[in-house]
């Protein structure tokens, strides 16, 4: 006879029934991420650039800013793998060191935008009604014009160009985009019964928003963050390219393109290599972002 039956047994005290893995969801996701080849490739490239962003001019063959030489605008050679620029600086060293500024500005802007956007999205998604209608309209209006245009106008108006301004600007412009995504997620989540259950035990709005709903909408927020990061790089590079973002003499890649694109013929090396560096970073970030999304949406 089975030992599960006693006089007043009923179902025995439950052992964990359904999914047998005891691992937490987070570990599972991490493992899955690390198994995806595209994520690994992207991650390696990212790591490479981050390393150089941190170590920067300490490990480049030449100093990217100050090592100015006689060989001006000379093409790629054994001495200078990527050639030299108009001040005789080694383009290879400049390219290696050029990741720092963008890797400071873009994540900071994305973080700012994500935090602000999440807060907004939570509020309008939870309260709905008039608040939602009004703010959504404003968000729609702000989003009509692309970030580069808004950036153009604001930065020119302010007259000062600094990475901090760019960071704040991009963060502010991204906030509505993030808010929209968060709002959609919060609306869906708010339909679920546990939210109702929370309100029915007297929980106040801030508690429900931040303690009940927010943990459940983290996945789309994380995905949104990684996607926005790619676009932040895009936006910072774009603004720098038209002269409004990071400024010379920084070896930032977009600055280099900004300085030399008019003379692309015949001095192609001064623009091609920085452009390729940007490309590699963008691809890397996007690959990682895609992997993160796959893992969270499974």
């Amino acid at each position, binding site marked *: 006879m089975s030992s599960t039956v006693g006089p007043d047994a009923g179902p025995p005290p439950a052992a964990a029934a359904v999914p047998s893995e005891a691992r937490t969801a987070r570990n599972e996701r991490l493992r899955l991420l690390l198994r995806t080849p*595209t994520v690994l490739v992207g991650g390696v490239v990212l790591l490479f650039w981050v390393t150089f962003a941190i170590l920067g001019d300490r490990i480049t063959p030449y100093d990217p800013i100050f090592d100015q030489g006689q060989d001006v605008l000379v093409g790629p050679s054994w001495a200078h793998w990527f050639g030299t620029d108009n001040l005789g600086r080694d383009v290879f060293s400049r390219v290696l060191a050029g990741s720092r500024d963008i890797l400071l500005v873009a994540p900071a802007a994305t973080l700012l935008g994500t935090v602000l956007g999440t807060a907004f999205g939570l509020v309008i998604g939870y309260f709905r009604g008039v608040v939602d209608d009004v703010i959504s*309209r*404003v968000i*729609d*209006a*702000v*989003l*009509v*014009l*692309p*970030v*580069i*245009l*808004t950036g*153009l*106008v*604001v930065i*020119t*108006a*302010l*007259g000062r160009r600094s990475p901090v301004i760019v960071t704040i600007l991009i963060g502010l412009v991204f906030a509505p985009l993030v808010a929209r995504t968060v709002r959609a997620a919060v609306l869906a989540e708010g339909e679920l019964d546990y939210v109702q259950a929370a309100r029915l035990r007297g929980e106040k709005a801030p508690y429900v928003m931040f303690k009940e709903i927010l943990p459940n909408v983290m996945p789309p927020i994380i995905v949104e963050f990684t996607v926005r990061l*790619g*676009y932040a*790089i*895009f936006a910072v*590079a*774009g603004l720098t*390219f*038209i002269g409004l973002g990071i400024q010379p003499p920084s070896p930032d890649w*977009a600055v280099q*393109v900004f300085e030399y*694109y008019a003379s*692309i*013929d015949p001095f*192609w090396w001064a*623009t*091609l290599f920085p*452009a*390729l560096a*940007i*490309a590699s970073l*963008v*691809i890397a*970030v*996007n*690959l990682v*972002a*895609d992997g993160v999304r796959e893992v969270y949406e499974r």
Partner: protein
Amino acid sequence: MLRYILKRLGLAAITLFLLSVIVFGLSQLLPGNVARAVLGQFATQEAMDSFNHQVGADRPAIVQYLDYMRGFVQGDLGLSLASEAPVWSILEPAIINSLKLAALAFVIVVPLSILGGIAAGLRADTGSDRSITIFGLSMSAMPEFVTGIILILVFTIWLGWLPVTAQWDEGAGPGTQIKHLLLPSVCLALVLFGYIARITRAGVIEAVDADYTRTAYLKGLPTHTVIRRHVLRNALLPTLAVVATQTSYLVGGLLIVEQLFNYQGIGLQIYLSAQQKDFTVLTSGLLLLGVLVLIVTLVADIVYGLLNPRIRFGSAE
């Protein structure tokens, strides 16, 4: 359906209004320096004040706004502060040029990205799917000037197939124009490809996994019929719904691409007017762009409503 259209129109109107306030507000940040920019660094305070008075920049913001909007609606956009030419005469050719560029970009990207998305969706999780998806993904946040530089180097400088700048001579035929516009529009198209392809792919996958597709197969219909009549019809609707966001990216791309290729479009014009602090041109330029984007969005929404039976016919219950 009518209610849907009216609602969309209403929303568009509100958005337009808010946009005009924002744009006007933004450009109001500038005029403090207008006089200085126009008159030069050594202008006296008197000269600046009189200039500001002349152009009406010293009136309260609300009055300026209303005045401006009245003019805008009537088609009178005022005079450029930098050149005193009518704003419209500056913007009109620029807009037309940009429209040509944008149109070419759309013509290139829409069919390719939709086909790409369908191919990826139907072969989900296979090699071709991964390639298309990764390609689209990589391109979607790639700054246009990066792709631009590479394309220029390859096709113009090294291969010499296409012209360097996007300027053609007067009276050039459409063929020549397209040749000049090809590189910049490809740059724009690449950015848009990724997102459209991804949405289409998602729509296809959802439709393929749907119950109604199963019904179609179990009726004994051949695969091509099922894909055509059942899957694609439903898969492409979400794509249409996101056209609006794409227009916004396109506009941003215009600014970069026109700069890179030195193309006299509205992006370049806005850039110049911002540099020159020419706020009449700037305000009108931004607002016109906004109007264009809103119109495209509105049309896309209405077409979506027409194609989606749930909206077109409403529900019975």
